């Protein structure tokens, strides 16, 4: 037996895993080779030390904690996935999808740092979409961190919240309309148009209340929507 073979077989020898013939060959080699004999003794000391280290620690049971954390995180991920699916079901796409996604992030999640509440808000929206299998229109009221008169570009947590309304009209020619103080955007899947809010002459806020004799804001906006859609 060569020294290199002997070194490779040291662990098997110490573990008692060599067959009798190989064991005899190895012992015969070590009788003749002082270097391998010394190496065997050093390895024996090393393994004894490693064994003592290993035994020094107490038994461990992490299964429950680990599996609980995994299941909790999975539930959160699942709700997020469902939310994204529902948004797709609603038929939001393109630039408007980005606006709605920002709205959800800016409106619900940034508005409510408590994750559970934000998740709940997203879940309610998802349930609403699920409960209405063939809607003709969808109307969402929310808040968005942005500034008025901007063309739905300046969105983020450095801005204050402003009220936002979104309508989706389903059917052969689906259309979207997003409205915020001072700005309205309309999209039909091919084109995206935006302009100053029709009731925002001179920079006033649309929908901040209605005078006696006027139509309620919602109906007024819906009639505007017919014009724009």
């Amino acid at each position: 037996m060569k020294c290199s073979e002997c070194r490779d077989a040291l662990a098997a020898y110490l573990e008692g895993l060599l067959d009798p013939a190989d064991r005899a060959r190895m012992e015969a080699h070590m009788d003749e080779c002082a270097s391998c004999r010394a190496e065997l003794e050093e390895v024996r000391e090393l393994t004894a030390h490693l064994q003592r280290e290993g035994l020094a620690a107490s038994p461990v049971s992490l299964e429950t904690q680990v599996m609980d954390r995994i299941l909790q995180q999975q539930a959160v991920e699942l709700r997020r996935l469902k939310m994204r699916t529902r948004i797709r079901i609603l038929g939001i796409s393109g630039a408007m999808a980005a606006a709605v996604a920002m709205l959800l992030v800016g409106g619900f999640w940034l508005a409510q740092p408590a994750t559970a509440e934000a998740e709940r808000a997203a879940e309610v929206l998802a349930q609403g979409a699920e409960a209405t299998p063939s809607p003709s229109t969808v109307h969402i009221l929310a808040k968005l961190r942005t500034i008025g008169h901007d063309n739905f570009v300046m969105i983020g947590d450095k801005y204050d919240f402003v009220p936002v309304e979104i309508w989706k009209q389903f059917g052969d020619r689906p259309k979207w309309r997003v409205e915020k103080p001072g700005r309205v955007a309309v999209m039909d899947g091919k084109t995206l148009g935006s302009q100053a809010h029709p009731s925002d002459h001179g920079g006033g806020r649309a929908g901040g209340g209605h005078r006696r004799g006027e139509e309620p804001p919602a109906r007024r906006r819906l009639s505007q929507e017919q014009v724009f859609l």
Partner: protein
Amino acid sequence: MPPSDAECVRSCLDGHPEAFRHLVARYQTSLTRHLRFHLGEMGEALEVAQETFVRAYFALGNLRKPEAFFSWLLGIADRVCKETRRAALRHKSVSCDQMELAETTKTVDPGAGQAVTEAVGGLPDAYREVIVLRFYGGHSCADISRDLGVPLGTVTKRLSRAYALLREQLAGRGGAGSEVTP
């Protein structure tokens, strides 16, 4: 017969998270004891081990060789260890009294134990995993062979080479015998 690592990993990826329980049960002791010798404190080792398993579960899709799960897990544990140490350094704004207390409770494993632990930590993955499983996890060579999906002869050969590397590293620190001998 318990499922192999690769079977557990595939099962998790097929949407059965409970299969991960087998992997946690199989490696929790080895990993935590290994971490305990790295970090010096059992409480911290348990936290890091838990975080390591959770991160591993959510990163299973990136695991290229499911049969090398434990080796991959040790890599994640190393990263979590480094993050934990960096975070500890950032939070050094404790009072002198608190600092002294922390130091006295942390120096659990000085001297020879620390030298061997560091040497184990410096081994290449394939050698480190067999050492950790054999000595910190108390697995037999036959168990390691089954868990890692490699022949028994490969396990013993890796152990032999790991011993040689450990001896070299410890000798480089000023004499293996004096470091290893209790």
